[in-house]
Structures are given as C-alpha cells and as structure tokens.
C-alpha cells in the first residue's frame, strides 16, 4: 500500500489533468448549450442525463475539471509564492522577522481554512480570480510553517556551515543548499495544497459562494443536482465523485513524499 499510494495518486492526477486539458475533445456536447430535453435520466445520448436547462451533465462534469485545475493550481501557486519566501526568510535569518511571522502563522493555522475562506469570499465576492487569491491566502501559512521548520533544521547543518566557511552569502546558501534540500517536501506540500484548494472551492461552491453560473464547476454541479436527487442522483454523485478522486489523487501523491 505504501508503494501503491503515489502510483494511485499520480494516476488519478493524470486522469484529472487529461480531462481538464482535453475537455473539448472528450466532452460529447457543448457544456453551455441548452436543449429541450430537460432533466433527462441517463441514456445512450446523455450518459449522465441532462440538467434543468437541458445541458449534458457529462460534458459539464468534464469541463468542470478545467475550473478545478485552474483553482487548484492557481491557489497552490499563490500559497507557495507567499509561503516559501516567508518561510525561508523566517527560518534562515530568525530574529525579528521570525518573531513577527510565527505568531501570525499560528493565528492563521488556528482558524479553520474553510471558515476563513468563506468569510473573505463573502467580503470580496465570488469569482474565479478572487477564489484563487482567497484560497492562496488561506493556505500560505501552512506552507510558511513547513518551509520555516525545514530551513531552521538545515541552517544548523555542517554543510551549511562549511558553505559559510568558504565565503558563501545568505542568498548563495539558500539557493544552493537550502532550496535543493527542501524542494521535495515543498513539492509534496504543493500537491496537498492543490487538493485542499479543490476541496475547499467545491465546498464554497456547494454553499453558493463559488464560481458564478454558467461556468461548470464541481461544487456548483453537486449543489445544482441536489434539487433533483430523486429524479437523477447521478447529477450530484458524478461531480462529487470527480472531486473526491481528484482531491485524493493530489493528497495521496503529496503525502507519500517523506
């Protein structure tokens, strides 16, 4: 199972990325195009049926992968963009910056990510860009904490002292010794961040604070299907399953790096 984790994870990620990139090829219909076949049950023409506006659910789920990919990667990149430099500086230089950063990180981490994201989203309004920024903002402290801890441990190593002894400055040491040694852990945290962002954005959409319609996104699709659960349960279950599989894919991959 240990060995299998990253394999399963990477397969799920590959399937998800392929779905997002090749959406226009795979999807049988235009995800925005309505028809008169409203809330059709699954059939040979519409494998997952149609929604209340007669749009093909399968196509909408497939296109939903794009939204999730953008949010997942975008938010994780934002989180890294803030968290990695902050963690490196706090961990490597310590001192006043560290004394300022650590309580801030602790404060953020003490708040549940979803609730924080919810509050900020209400304030700034839900759209794709805001969602990416809000989720990145919610996630950077865990990145910073991880990077800080790793850097702190590395700073005391003899090989970093050796690098200082040959005259290497802070920038040189961070670039040549600290960064290469924490890259793996940061990559793992990146994957975990993607999974958190996709999961949380789906949760926000489900609560009605996600991507505004008509853009298909998985959380929103689950929410929309809710009203028609007795007529066509796949309307909710299909996007729910893709969220689960994708989040699991990134999480399994990320958590298997140690």
């Amino acid at each position: 199972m240990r060995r299998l984790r990253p394999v399963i994870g990477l397969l799920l990620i590959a399937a998800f990325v392929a779905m997002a990139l090749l959406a226009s090829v795979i999807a049988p219909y235009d995800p925005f195009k309505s028809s008169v076949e409203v809330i059709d049950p699954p059939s040979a023409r519409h494998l997952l049926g149609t929604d209340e506006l007669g749009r093909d659910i399968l196509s909408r789920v497939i296109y939903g992968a794009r939204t999730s990919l953008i949010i997942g990667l975008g938010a994780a990149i934002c989180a890294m963009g803030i968290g990695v430099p902050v963690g490196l500086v706090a961990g490597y230089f310590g001192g006043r910056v560290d004394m300022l950063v650590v309580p801030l990180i602790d404060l953020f981490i003490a708040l549940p990510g979803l609730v924080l994201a919810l509050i900020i989203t209400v304030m700034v309004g839900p759209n794709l860009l805001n969602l990416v920024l809000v989720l990145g903002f919610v996630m950077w402290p865990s990145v910073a904490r991880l990077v800080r801890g790793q850097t702190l441990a590395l700073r005391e190593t003899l090989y970093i002292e050796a690098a200082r002894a040959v005259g290497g400055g802070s920038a040189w040491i961070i670039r040549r010794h600290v960064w290469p040694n924490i890259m793996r852990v940061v990559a793992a945290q990146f994957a975990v961040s993607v999974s958190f962002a996709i999961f949380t954005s789906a949760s926000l959409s489900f609560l009605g604070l996600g991507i505004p319609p008509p853009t298909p996104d998985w959380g929103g699709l689950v929410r929309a299907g809710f009203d028609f659960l007795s007529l066509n349960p796949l309307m909710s279950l299909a996007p729910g399953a893709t969220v689960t599989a994708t989040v699991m894919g990134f999480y399994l991959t990320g958590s298997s790096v140690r």
Partner: protein
Amino acid sequence: MNGTAPLLEVRRLRKWYEIKGGVIPHLIGHVQAVTDVSFSIGRGEVLGLAGESGSGKTTIGRCVLRLIEPTSGEVLFEGEDIGTFGPERLRKFRRHAQVVFQDPFGSLDPRMTVGEIVSEPLEVQKLFPNSKERRDRVVELLETVALSSEFLKRRPRELSGGQRQRVGIARAIAVNPMFIVADEPVSSLDVSIQAQIVNLLEDLREKLGLAILFISHDIVVMEHLSNRIAVVYLGRVMEIGPTDELTSNPKHPYTEALLSAVPDPDPALRGKRIVLEGDIPNPVAPPSGCVFRTRCPRAIAECAAAIPPLREISPGRAAACIRL
C-alpha cells in the same frame, strides 16, 4: 616564528553564551565555553589543540574563523583584527583561512556531487570563472587528496568515511589557503584510515606551506603533525609548548593526566596511570580559582583562591598552575 609577526594571533578570546530563563526571560548566567584564550600560530606551523569533549576546542576553532562571533578578545590574521571585517573583507579572508570538519558525513551536502562540493569554494570566491578551467582545478584538487576524476559525479553517500574526509579536505584547500582549522578531522574515522588522513594533512602542509590548527581530544593523533601543542580544559589553556617537550615532560597536572591515559605498547615503559575522578565541571558554574582543581591530584587549598595565569616556565613553554 623567526621574530616575524605570526600568521594568526589570538588574544584573550572569550565566548560566553548567555542563558536566559524565568517567566520574564532575563539573563541568569553564562555558559563559559571559552575564557581568555591566547595563542599564536606561525606561517606553516601546526598547533595542536588538545582537550576533552566540552573543553571548548571547537568553539575556539569557530571563533578564529569567525564562523561564530566571540564575546570578547581579538583574532588577528596577518596582523588584522578579523572582528572588524565587513562582509566583503570577510569573504576575502575566507580565501586564506579554511576549515575541515570532524563529521565528513554531515559536512557534505547530500544533494551535491563531489565535483560540485569541491568547486563550490571556487565559485563563491570567483576564482576560476571559466568552467573548463574550474573543472580542471577540481580534478587537480581531487588528485591532490588521492582521489581521481572518477569521483566527480559521485555523491557523498556513495563514499567511505575516509573518502568523504578527503573530499572535505579538497574543498578546504580549493581556495589555496594559508591556514586551516582541522576540527577533529580523524575522530570519526576508523583507526586504519586515521593515519592516512593525518599523513595527507602533513603532505599538504609541506606542499602548500599550510598552517594548521589541529583540534583533537587525542594527543597521540596530533603528536606527529604538531610543532606545538596547547592543552585546554573547560575553555582555558592549561599548558602550551613544543610537542616534544610537552609530551615527554608535561608540567601541568592535567597534561600529565591526559598523557598517562595514552596506552603504551611496551608494558615496561608504562608509567603510573593518573585517573581523573569525576567529570568535567559544568561550564555554567566553573570552580573558583583554577578550574582544574576539582579533579587535580595535586590540588591544595590555595588553588581555589585565584585563577592561575598562564606563566612562562621555560622559553616557549607556559603553564597555568601555581604549583609549578
């Protein structure tokens, strides 16, 4: 020394670490790692620094390279106080003064190849900007330490302890330094390898005219290589003098005890072993007067009264003991 200025001069070096405690953190004491240590090293000279673990040897080594900042005292390199160096001057200083660490496993970055490790000092110091020339220099350095170009692409984990230490030495001499601090360079190696590394250091000293501060807890290891030996205990110099004199005729009771602990292969020549009672005292609260008195077989009441100064007992020899 030949009457000229020494290469390195250490004057009343002190490194005390502050201990803070209490609900509202305040200074409650000091770890007296190094107290008022003075010595000098001439060009091409090897000074052995001997002492038990916890005696402050490594701290002294780090201070003379300014890898840590001393609390007080001066370190003069070619007559210049290295404590006053700014970043740029310090970087230049590191071209002349280098270090070999005890632990060849921890001192090499596991992610780098041997070639990258040895060329790092050259890159940092911008000594061979041309990458072809730099590579040649790295190969030359590897050959100097009896490794070959086939090691270039290897990583530290693929090397034996002795090979790693050779890489550590190659890195240290890459910038063509005048002075090296060798901090327990052989202590973590097999006995069979220790001699090889000591011999390598001796070769380098001759070839490159290197001055070395050779730090070890083992007086035997440094005997062959060192011109002079300084014995430290609890961060203070107990005795300093030329190797032959100091080892054949130790003056300070602590030196005597250290030397008596060395096993002699010939039982007939074995002297009486002086066994020191107890452990090295806590450097936070060292004994008053002579710090060695609590374990000294020759201690008398007066030893507690005042710190004995390091006094010259014969030309080039000094000891800190009131009973001499």
